[in-house]
């Protein structure tokens, strides 16, 4: 068994164990876990069957198979970061809406309390 194979197997297994542990502790939501699960499985497949990579490189016309690997890896990371930026933007918009709502509710509450304080209670 070659060194790169062991490296690939160890890497993907670490990711899979981490995923499982995070899911178990409710630290990771399923939709993100699925994504990383497929990434880990891909790494595992390439580690176990290196011919897969050389075959793909030949089809794609890439002379050095490792370069194809790096290219695909950076592409995956790019897409993932973009997706995170999108999620972040959505969260910011939601936070903004909540903050506005909280401010409006607080104002209503202040007005109500002031009204009640100025009115004498009925049983007195």
């Amino acid at each position, binding site marked *: 068994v070659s060194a790169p194979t062991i490296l690939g197997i160890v890497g993907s297994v670490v990711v899979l164990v981490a995923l499982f542990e995070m899911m178990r502790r409710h630290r990771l939501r399923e939709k993100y876990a699925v994504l990383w699960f497929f990434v880990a499985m891909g790494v595992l497949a390439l580690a176990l069957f290196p011919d897969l990579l050389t075959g793909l490189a030949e089809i794609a016309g890439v002379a050095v198979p490792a370069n194809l690997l790096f290219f695909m890896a950076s592409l995956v990371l790019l897409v993932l970061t973009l997706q995170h930026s999108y999620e972040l933007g959505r969260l910011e*918009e939601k936070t*903004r809406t909540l*903050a*506005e709502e*909280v*401010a*409006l509710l*607080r*104002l*209503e509450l202040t*007005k109500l309390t002031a009204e009640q304080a100025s009115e004498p209670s009925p049983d007195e």
Partner: protein
Amino acid sequence: MSGAADPGVYSAPVTPDAEPTPPLGRVLVIIPAWNEQASLAATIADIRLTNPAVDILVVDDGSADRTASVAEAAGALVCRLPFNLGVGGAMRTGYRYALRHGYDVAVQIDADGQHDPRYLPSLLDRLDEADLVIGARFAGEGERYRVSFLRGLAMKLLAWTLTRMARNRLTDVTSGFRVANRRAAALFAAHYPAEYLGDTVESTVIAIRAGCTVTQVPVEMRVRQAGQASQTSLRAALYLARAVVALALALVRDWPDAELPAEEPREGS
């Protein structure tokens, strides 16, 4: 941002308006304020003196100073945002309040006192023919307002594009002195951008694309005492770039149909 021109001094009214309160219904003045304790009291007093019939809502945009208590002491309604959202967030909060409490007109006035509330009646007057009226600096009055070349270029670009879109002369779309009727306020309560320059430029574009009529009224701005309105050339260049980006985005952005949202049920009553 501090020390508005002293509110005690008034020359003759600018608009010889016979009617004390135009039959417009209830008017809410929204003042977005972020760390404006120095000028806010004078601004509120000024508005109350010149326009006694309007209600004033100060939206405290996560200030670290005494903005909220100063506003309360001056007799305004105060809405406190839990953290800083920018003018866009503060204004959307204000429009939502206006809508929920059945106001007919929502006015935006800056807290630093650069907008002279004596012009408010002349802006309100134009609501008979428009949904959104902007108090504009370059439309004849207040010629001494000078800007750098690049900033001027940005403003010309914005003015040219939005004038084409609105089919009405709009010379100063970055002005934060504006009056919206119920239709425009309902639109802004749902869609009001939070990004820099988005609050003024993009909201105007949204209004136009939703079919609102947008027009302007010339106003004279007061000189900001401590304000440094990005006058270095680097800042001016940055402003130009931001203006171009904001404008381009506003033009291509897909606003959810830009249709008028269904009116929210009023609270209380």
